[in-house]
């Protein structure tokens, strides 16, 4: 047991100092019936090389995305992560630090969070951002609750273009609430939400690019929402798109929530990811999660601390804005380092590359017999309709070593209209030969 530092002799010494006959005496508060009253049917400790071999064997049973052509998106995206990012986040002082409760010896984490908040505010075009949330989906649910607190109204409209998992999380957080209106998915891209706003509406939630890849008109949505005193919550699942698309803040968004995974964070089978949340400054005190702020120390030097904690559960308990008591610190660090490496020039180039490859993909797909591309607009993701059930098509392509996208039916199993729809994404990592392999295989499968 290489992680435990005591020898038997030291343990005996320590028990002597405590004045306990044995370690069981330290568990005297545990009812007898419950203390070591069982044998665990689990393996005993194992040397490092055997544990590593076991984990490697499990990993090898998975088809890693880098092993072949890959077009899977729908809320998580495969981008290149510079080697510097992963190297830096593994430095001990980042990796094994805790919540910066003692700011004098946590300035690294705190300054990083301040820089991260600045970066998020800039790319979303908003006044302020927090120090990250669990992910985009839970962030969306928190944004809905936040909008209700701000407006003191209850009705919330979720666009049909919102990622179905995000919709489900909001529904779980607002269980059985009749004031939550979930509009039907709209694969063809028509907006349906604006006519439904009324004076009781707290917020409308619009994703752009939406679940099917269509870009949504945020300016029109903001104007329509504001006319009724409602807030516009904008959800972005592909944060790279903000390198090319107008910032939601410049178009009138009140709260912006993004999944930040695309920058600096690997796919990881769905987690850990990081939620970005930004808002107008008048709403700061209703914002959930951690905030880092600038201040001075006793010598007058600039320093950083966690701040406005009177919103938080450890102070306000049942009156807190949220029960959240953590953030995605290390993922935020990865995001911030990658974003610092990109800078404005790199971020814009990355977004252009994604869009350029997506155009090639869309044009190639449109040329395949039996395939129609539904999108007139898109960033790096699009939806196609084929003549066969999408799950069967995707499975057949997987057998050929091509991970071809997500059947919409996987996320919307009860919707017969989406049975033949596949959502595909291209990123900077998509090559022309990947696209050629996909279209050739797709032609075969659809023939």
């Amino acid at each position, binding site marked *: 047991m290489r992680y435990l530092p005591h020898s038997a002799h030291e343990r005996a010494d320590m028990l002597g100092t405590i004045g306990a006959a044995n370690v069981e005496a330290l568990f005297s508060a545990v009812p007898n019936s419950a203390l070591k009253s069982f044998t665990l049917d689990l393996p005993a400790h194992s040397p490092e090389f055997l544990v590593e071999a076991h984990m490697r064997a499990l990993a090898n049973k998975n088809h890693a995305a880098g092993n072949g052509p890959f077009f899977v998106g729908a809320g998580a995206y495969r981008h290149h992560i510079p080697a510097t990012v992963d190297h830096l986040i593994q430095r001990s002082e980042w990796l094994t630090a805790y919540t910066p409760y003692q700011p004098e010896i946590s300035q690294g984490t705190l300054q990083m969070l301040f820089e991260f*908040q600045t970066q998020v505010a800039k790319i979303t075009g908003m006044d302020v951002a927090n120090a990250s949330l669990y992910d985009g989906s839970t962030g969306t649910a928190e944004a809905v609750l936040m909008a209700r607190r701000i407006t003191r109204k209850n009705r919330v409209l979720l666009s049909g273009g919102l990622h179905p998992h995000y919709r489900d999380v909001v529904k779980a957080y607002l269980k059985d609430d009749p004031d939550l209106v979930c509009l039907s998915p709209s694969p063809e891209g028509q907006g349906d939400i604006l006519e439904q706003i009324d004076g009781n509406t707290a917020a409308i939630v619009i994703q752009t690019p939406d679940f099917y890849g269509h870009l949504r008109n945020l300016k029109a949505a903001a104007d329509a929402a504001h006319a009724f005193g409602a807030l516009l919550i904008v959800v972005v699942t592909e944060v790279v798109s903000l390198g090319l698309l107008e910032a939601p803040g410049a178009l009138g968004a009140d709260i912006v929530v993004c999944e930040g995974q695309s920058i600096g964070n690997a796919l990881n089978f769905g987690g850990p990811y990081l939620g970005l949340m930004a808002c107008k400054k008048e709403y700061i005190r209703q914002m959930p999660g951690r905030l880092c702020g600038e201040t001075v120390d006793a010598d007058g030097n600039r320093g950083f601390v966690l701040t406005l904690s009177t919103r938080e559960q450890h102070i306000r308990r049942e009156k807190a804005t949220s029960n959240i008591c953590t953030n995605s610190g290390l993922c935020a660090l990865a995001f911030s380092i990658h974003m610092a490496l990109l800078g404005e020039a790199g971020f814009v180039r990355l977004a252009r590359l994604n869009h350029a490859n997506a155009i090639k993909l869309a044009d190639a797909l449109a040329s395949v017999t039996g395939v129609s591309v539904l999108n007139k607009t898109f960033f790096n993701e699009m939806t196609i309709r084929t003549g066969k059930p999408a799950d069967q098509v995707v499975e057949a392509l997987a057998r050929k070593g091509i991970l071809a996208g997500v059947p919409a039916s996987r996320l919307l199993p009860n919707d017969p209209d989406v049975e033949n729809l596949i959502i595909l994404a291209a990123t900077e990592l998509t090559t022309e030969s990947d696209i050629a392999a996909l279209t050739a295989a797709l032609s075969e499968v659809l023939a």
Partner: protein
Amino acid sequence: MSMNTQGRPTGVGTASTGASGSALLPDEPLLFEIGDTEHSGVDLPDVEITNGRLGGFERKTKLDLAGLTEPEAMRHYVRLSRLNHSIDSGMYPLGSCTMKHNPRLNEKTARLPGFSDIHPLQPVSTVQGALELMNELSHWLMTLTNTAAVALSPKAGAHGELLGMMAIKAAQDAKGESHRNVVLVPESAHGTNPATAAFLGYTVKPVPAKADGTVDVEAVKTAIAPDVAAIMLTNPNTCGLFEPQVIEIAKAIHDAGAYFYCDGANFNAIMGVVRPGDLGIDAMHINLHKTFSTPHGGGGPGAGPVVLSEALAPFAPVPFVRKGAQGLELVEHVENQALGRVTAFHGQMGMYVRALTYMLSHGADGLAQAAEDAVLNANYVKARLQHLFSVPFPDYPTMHEALFNDSFLKDTGVTTLDFAKALIDEGFHPMTMYFPLVVHGAMLIEPTESESKQTLDRFCDVMAELATEAKSGNAARFTGAPMKAPRRRLDETRAARQPILKWERAAEMPKAAE
């Protein structure tokens, strides 16, 4: 004009003039003060897009986003990192937070492309190893807790709490008992407990603790009424004590038709030694990132799977793994499932890999030994310091953390906060202060199992020396602390009163006469 807090205009680097910088620990300017919009540390081709499909939604405003070249970024983040205390650089006796050794094998396995480079929505047939891993982790968690089901997906402890309480609510709704709208929460609970209950619309009813620091079953019985839905109890509790009447409390709650939510934040004290299922819990979250060692990363990410009793198992959310004809299946939808989903995708896979790696390394025997050593270490610290520090609840052995209060500082002019800051100058991260709230001037110390006797002795020597010095009247050593940290005491009131939450570009400064 925008000025920074040193009275210098922002946008001017502070490294060369920062008074508190020293040769090997210089002040580090903000990245916006060293980078600019032209610099980039990533080589990407600049493609021409002639037939764009953005539909007129192109960005017209500038981002004003600073970039760094690769060597600049390397230095910036290495220098910043050195301003952090971390478990790899020193002891972190932060009570209620479990900062223990983070094995690098965990990092290595989590980065295997078969785990890190797989997409949550790629075909299930291509991720059988990932499902096997989730299944194996579930088996470990259910076996260690003796429970019927586990929901892996919550993203953190507080998220797990939320899910556990949602399951309780769903179970009660299914029984037609939606009138139950009160949750009992002991006063010693984490702040997340009342926040979670309130989040779900419950009224929080506090339960007082006995003078010995534990919850009295009689007080619970008195608080029980027909409208009580559940109790949220932390065990071992936040005073570091195992609740001796936990089985009776569970029975009283169940007899009243309510459920027992256990906050499992402190499971590391009893893993392999006590199974929470044997105590009568209905739901309990487990902080994988504390109990099973995944890195804390400056406060996250975490992972908070919830184990569920048979009564609550039908209310587990999606997704979950089950055996099917074609191998393992990932169940992502259940018709009329009461709870649905609490996060996109399948939860914190990266944490699952780390936790399972840690479990296999320790084995069932090693986890039990780790719990015993954590308890041994906490009792050792308590034994070594109790003659100088006051122990508020001396009746029971402490579990994995030792609780003192600050009554020894009375009339010294030194506050608990001062005392904690003085520890920084001695090279230790301070203990948790002013928590739990039930103890006035609380000082909560959690050494964990990964600290050696030698380190504990040095820590206890320093604590004793500081206590003696405070009592001897040398308040200046404390009120001026820390003296040797990268920053002196920071003004938190100012940060809250005049929030500065992002860097702003300074307005053009008038040029000084040259």
